[in-house]
């Protein structure tokens, strides 16, 4: 039975948790070449910008949304698109949970739409988004020629 036939609206995507520390946040911003001081200069972030701590970079949370979708999807398809917004900031020391729910399945098109979001410990949805996945053709499984992400 093809994977898409086993998926229904309301299905939950397994949750991921991330708790980035200073080292991870430093490496992330270094990989981007992002020198924004709110991510590494605590006195600046607090005293000048008025944040309670070092701010976790917005696109890092966007990345976790893609990871949540891809971990659920496995080798059965690829990410066709994603949209998200950074609604609220998160800070070093927080444990953040990324989870999702299947919104709709289009068996004829071989696609599904899922809702994904990063939530903080207080339960606030800080980075909501939706993603579209395209399943590989029935019975073909993973086809490297079609790309895998």
């Amino acid at each position, binding site marked *: 039975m093809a994977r898409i036939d086993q998926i229904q609206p309301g299905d939950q995507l397994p949750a991921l948790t991330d708790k980035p520390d200073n080292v991870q946040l430093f*490496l992330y911003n270094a990989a*981007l070449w992002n020198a924004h001081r709110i991510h590494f200069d605590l006195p600046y972030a607090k005293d000048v910008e008025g944040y309670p701590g070092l701010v976790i970079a917005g696109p890092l949370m966007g990345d976790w949304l893609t990871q949540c979708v891809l971990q659920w999807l496995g080798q059965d398809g690829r990410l066709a*698109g994603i949209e998200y917004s950074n609604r609220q900031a998160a800070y070093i020391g927080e444990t953040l949970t990324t989870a999702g729910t299947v919104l709709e399945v289009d068996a004829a098109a071989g696609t599904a739409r899922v809702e994904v979001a990063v939530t903080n410990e207080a339960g606030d949805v800080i980075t909501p988004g939706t993603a579209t996945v395209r399943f590989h053709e029935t019975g073909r499984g993973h086809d490297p020629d079609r790309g895998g992400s």
Partner: protein
Amino acid sequence: MSGLLSKALLANIGKQAPPRTEVVTRRDIRKYAIATGQRDPSFLAGDRAPPLYHVALFWDVVPLEELTPDGVSIDKLLPKFPLERAMAGGLNIEYHRDIVPGDVLIANRTLTDIYEKQGRQGPLIFYEIIMEVSTEDGEKVLTEKTTRILR
């Protein structure tokens, strides 16, 4: 509408940044994959790039003297807006194919919209930038729309 957007400001809609070309290396993919805590071994090995890797690949690299005192590089595609404090932003990405080591990718960025809305605490300015990423041969890789809000 409080009419924050002058005709001259709106005339910037449609402005394009010079195309940027970047080479994808396994080392850079691995750095990005490790820093983002990827779970998929093919990303951690650098065999292919995670879906948001292009954010790092096309982040502007500017000389130190062009960074502001808070460490931010000014996007030359943007005009000076009458509101300056950045609020939430979002991305909308459509993927066409994987990014792999050895790819030579070209990014074309266009300022596609500027508009104003009344927020609860005053006027807000929204702007949108579309980035088209393709290979040297013109094969589409991804399309990304960024929306940012200023207050």
